[in-house]
């Protein structure tokens, strides 16, 4: 399987953000590294958050997360 460069960037960002957000062991851990989620990776990032949460989890720390904005793009399809 091959990835485009942009896909790798998104994937890497999502993984990094998740690792930060989850602190390596569940929601609620405090992130310590600034993360920038590219606008093209918002949906993937959110899906990853959804996949790693539960009703008894504490909120993911997003204080160091930046969701990039794109004024020229159309919304991404949500699977």
């Amino acid at each position, binding site marked *: 399987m091959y990835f485009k460069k942009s896909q790798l960037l998104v994937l890497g960002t999502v993984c990094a953000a998740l690792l930060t957000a989850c602190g390596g062991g569940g929601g609620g851990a405090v992130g310590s590294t600034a993360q920038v989620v590219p606008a093209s990776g*918002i949906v993937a990032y*959110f899906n990853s958050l959804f996949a790693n949460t539960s009703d008894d989890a*504490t*909120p993911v720390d*997003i204080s160091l997360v930046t969701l990039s*904005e*794109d004024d020229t793009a159309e*919304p*991404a399809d949500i699977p």
Partner: protein
Amino acid sequence: MNIKLTQAATACFLVIAACGATASSHREAPFITGAPKVDGTDFYMFRSYEGVSSNGTGGRSDYVTMIANYQPLQAAYGGPNYFQMDPNALYEIHVDNNGDAREDLTFQFRFKNTLKSIPLSIGGSSVAIPLIQAGTVSALNDPNLNVNETYEIKVVRGDRRKGTVSSVTKDTGPSVFEKPVDYIGTKTLGDKAAYAVYANKHIHNITIPGCAVPGRVFVGQRQEGFAVNLGTIFDLVNAPTAFLLNPANKDAVGMGGQHTIQKANVTSIAMEVHKSCLTAGAEPVIGAWSTASLRQGRLINGSPASGNDKAEKAGGAWVQVSRLGNPLVNEVVIGLPDKDKFNASQPKDDGQFLSYVTNPTLPALLGVVLAGDAAAVAPINLPRTDLATVFLTGITGVNKPATPTASEMLRLNTAIAPVQFADQNRLGVAGEVLRVGGLANLANAKDLAGFPNGRRPKDDVVDIALVAMLGGLCVINGDNDGLKLNSIPGVAGVTSMCKPSSVPLGAQSADIHDAVDQATVPFLNVFPYLNTPNGGS
């Protein structure tokens, strides 16, 4: 039989009105009920009638006013934060000036709330106050405002996302515009006259790139101008039936423009733009609609930082969540499963909703529910080419562009002169045709500047929509297709017999009203036209 039809017509009207009683587009779709700051409620567009003479010239007659209302049913006392616009939202007014169902011009509004964190010294400690004002307010950027709300305007030529973007500025140069604080009450802002003076300081003269003539803009709180028999209708139509079929009672419960909904406020984005800046070539008809969009990604911050608007992080592309052109479409035409879809859609894709217009469920449903007969009150000219023409293409000779593409938007023929407020027909074009005695006497008409040829605040769109739904336009269309309603302009192969014999209610379809007269609601005779808001105290 006449009695049965009368009763059915009354009930039919009431239920249609009830659907409209969610108001023109207030809380009309499931998703938007949870996002009131971006809930578009009404959209007006008309040739400005400020200062015009009786022949429709002079004053601001060469301008077009567009008003997009948001944030429905504001209680005036809704402190301490009141009703600021959403800084994480994009508010837009789109204009199609060549009939292709795609925007050619878009005016974009983005808001910003600046928190001053005005403190008080309490026991030697400096502590931020909990209110948005620290004293009386009367000036632009008043020092007593703890939150200053401002906005910027962009004009986009071409596709709303991919087009050429320019900043609209004040005629004095700055690109940041001040918005007045809501009418908190008389102790903070003075009486209604004083608030009007304060609010008028926020009417800005603007320079629009690519437009040789300056325009005006105002964004701020206004009294709700949309009139409808709201609570009574929601309460199982709790009104005497006899009132509703008697034209003498058309404002029986409207209380002279002070009905319940008029005690609420809305937030208006009002623009006045010279008509030459909106039209293209020789085509005088423009179509327009308002939208609001949110960022696709929105995260709620479990540990928000101190400050204003820190509880949410938003990113990604803009996602449209509200759309409004003609009033009442997403209420009484679009089915419940597709209301959110409609709010997210663009006119160029309206083919997906066509059957809702040509084969409306409401008349048949009303017949079944109210008379036990789906055919009792429903016009039989299916597909309803009359409704499709009004909502999707414009009426020939009134507001149809030369080459229309079927799509839902508010269409205005800018070549038709404005009419002074006092002379405006509350039932718009249909009312004026009826007033002069039919199409044969159209030359005697003096007001063809009303809905559906644009929409003015005075136009009673609830009553007009009721008349249209029950076939009133087919009665006017006559046996000789006088308004060209037997087909849909630009749509081949779709025809009907839109004529009086297709209308079960016949001429009675034109008498229906909801007992609240839009024409009695107080409005200004000058920009921004909608009235000074109700105060919180």
